C-alpha cells in the first residue's frame, strides 16, 4: 500500500510544542462544554467516536494498516460491557474493564490471523472477520439480535460518581477520552512508534535492519483494537444500549470516513473528523429525505477539494504537524 500521508513532517521540538498547545486548547474547550449550553450528550457521543477514530488512525496513519473491521472492537467491547453491567450487574469501572478485555482478546485473535496479509488484502480480511463476528452476534442469544441490549444501568463509578447525572457522565467520558488520546499520542511518539513509522515507510528496509516487522504490526493492531474497545465500553454508558449497528460494516466505514475527513495520520484529525461526522448525522437528521444526498455530497467534496482532511490541510498550510 502506498504511503497515504505523503507529506508527513518529521517531528521536531517545535512540532511537539504545537501539539501540546493544541491539546491544551482542545482539553479546555471540551472541559467547558457543560457550561457552554452545547448539548453534552452529543459531545459525549462524539468523544467516543473520536477515541475510536484515533485508535483506528494509530493503525493506518502510523502503521500503514487499513483495517476495515474496526467496528468489531467497538461492538465487542460494547456487548461485553453491556452484558457485564446489565446481567452480571458489575460496577461501571469493572464493566469498562470487561469491555476492554473483550476487545483485547478479540484483537489478539484477529490480529494473529490478519497481520501477515498485505495492503488491500489486510483490509479485506479484517472486513471478513468483522462480518463473521456480526453473524455470531446476530445469532448469539445474549446480544438480543437486532433489538440489542437495552436499558443498561449506568451506576456509580468507583461507587462515588453517579453516572446517570449527565454532567458527571460527561466528565467521566471526557477523562476517559483524554486518557485514551494521550496514550495514543504517547504510542505514536514512543520508541515503538518510531519503529512503526519506519515499517510503514519501507518495510523491506526495516526487515533488513533486523526488525521482525510482523511483531510490531501485531502489537500496533492489538493496541489499536484494545483502545477501540475502550471507546466501545465508554459508549455503552452514553447510549445505554449495545446494538448490532456497532458491529456492522458500515460502522467500520464510518470510522474510516471520520479519520479521512479529519486528516489521516494527523494527531487531531480523527477527533475533528469524528465531531464533524457525528454533527452531520445529528443536524442533518432534520433534512428529511435529503440526508443521504447531502452526506454523499460532503464526501465527494471532501475528496475532491480537501483531501488531506481538515486538520491535514491546516497542518499543511502552516507546514506544521498536528
Amino acid at each position: 500500500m502506498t504511503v497515504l500521508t505523503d507529506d508527513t513532517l518529521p517531528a521536531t521540538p517545535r512540532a511537539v510544542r504545537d501539539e501540546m498547545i493544541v491539546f491544551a486548547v482542545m482539553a479546555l474547550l471540551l472541559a467547558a462544554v457543560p457550561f457552554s449550553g452545547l448539548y453534552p450528550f452529543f459531545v459525549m457521543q462524539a468523544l467516543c467516536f473520536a477515541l475510536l477514530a484515533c485508535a483506528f488512525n494509530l493503525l493506518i496513519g502510523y502503521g500503514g494498516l487499513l483495517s476495515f473491521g474496526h467496528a468489531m472492537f467497538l461492538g465487542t467491547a460494547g456487548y461485553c460491557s453491556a452484558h457485564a453491567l446489565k446481567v452480571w450487574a458489575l460496577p461501571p469501572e469493572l464493566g469498562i474493564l470487561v469491555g476492554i478485555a473483550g476487545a483485547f482478546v478479540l484483537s489478539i485473535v484477529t490480529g494473529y490471523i490478519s497481520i501477515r496479509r498485505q495492503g488491500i488484502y489486510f483490509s479485506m480480511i479484517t472486513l471478513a472477520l468483522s462480518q463473521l463476528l456480526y453473524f455470531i452476534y446476530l445469532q448469539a442469544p445474549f446480544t438480543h439480535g437486532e433489538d440489542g441490549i437495552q436499558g443498561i444501568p449506568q451506576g456509580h463509578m468507583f461507587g462515588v460518581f453517579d453516572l446517570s447525572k449527565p454532567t458527571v457522565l460527561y466528565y467521566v467520558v471526557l477523562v476517559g477520552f483524554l486518557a485514551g488520546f494521550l496514550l495514543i499520542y504517547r504510542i505514536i511518539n514512543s520508541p515503538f512508534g518510531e519503529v512503526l513509522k519506519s515499517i510503514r515507510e519501507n518495510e523491506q528496509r526495516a526487515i533488513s535492519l533486523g526488525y521482525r516487522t510482523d511483531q510490531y504490526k501485531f502489537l500496533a493492531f492489538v493496541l489499536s483494537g484494545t483502545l477501540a474497545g475502550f471507546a466501545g465500553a465508554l459508549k455503552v454508558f452514553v447510549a445505554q444500549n449495545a446494538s448490532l449497528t456497532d458491529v456492522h460494516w458500515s460502522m467500520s466505514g464510518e470510522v474510516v470516513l471520520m479519520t479521512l475527513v479529519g486528516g489521516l495520520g494527523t494527531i487531531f484529525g480523527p477527533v475533528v473528523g469524528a465531531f464533524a461526522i457525528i454533527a452531520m448525522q445529528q443536524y442533518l437528521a432534520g433534512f428529511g429525505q435529503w440526508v443521504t444526498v447531502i452526506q454523499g455530497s460532503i464526501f465527494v467534496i471532501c475528496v475532491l477539494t480537501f483531501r488531506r482532511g481538515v486538520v491535514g490541510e491546516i497542518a499543511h498550510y502552516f507546514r506544521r504537524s498536528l
Partner: protein
Amino acid sequence: MADEFILETEGLTKEFAGFFAVRDVTLKVRRGSIHALIGPNGAGKTTCFNLLTKFLKPSAGKILYKGQDITAMAPADVARMGLVRSFQISAVFPHMTALENVRVALQRQQGSSFDFWRSKSVLNRFNERARELLNDVGLSEFANTPAVEMPYGRKRALEIATTLALDPEMMLLDEPMAGMGHEDIDKIAALIKRISAKYTILMVEHNLSVVANLSDIITVLTRGQVLAQGHYSELTKDERVKEAYLGAGHG
C-alpha cells in the same frame, strides 16, 4: 575453517518456475575482505543477495554464516546476526530525517523497540552516535533533512550509515554506485574502503573502476553460475570473462 571464511555457500540454487537464476553456486567470503560479485545483467547477483539475506528461499543448497547454518532463518534474524544488506534501489525511510533513519537502526540493538509507553525522547541518547555515523559518511549537514529531500547520492550514503549503525560484521552492498555522479562515486568508494577495515564486504557493482580499485577478490557470475574467481588483473586476462562480461576491446 569458520574463522577464515565468514560466509560460505554450498551448491546454492534458486529456480523460478523452471528457470535457474542461481545454480549450484559455491562461494567463500574471507573475513575482512572486500569481495566483489560481478557478472552480466541477469546473471543472478541480486538473486544471490536475496538468498543470502533470506529474502528468497533457496531451492537447494546451504548457507553458512560464521560457521552456523542459516539456510532456514528469517530475514530479520539474519540481520540480527550481523549480516546486513543494502538494496539495488535505494532504500531509506523517506519521511524521516537522516538522523531518525540512523536512529531506527541504532534503536534495534538496544531492545527498547517495543516500548510503546515511553516517550521517544529516550531515543535522544542515540543522537550522539547517530551524528557520528552521519559524520563518517559526510552527511552531518543533512542530519535534520527528511530523506526524501536528499539528493540521490546522499541517500546511498545514508543507507550505508544506517547499515553501519547496526554494527554488522558483514555488509552486502548491491550496486552502491548505481545512478551516481562522479563526485559521489569517489566519496562512496572512499567510504567503503574506510569501513572495510572493520567489516567484511560483499558487493555487486558494474562500475569497473570501482571494482578494480576496491575489491580484494572478484567472483564472476554468468547465467547463475560461477564462471571465474580471482583478482582484477587476473580476470581481465581471462577470455571467458572478457566475452561474458567485459566485452571486446577491454583489458
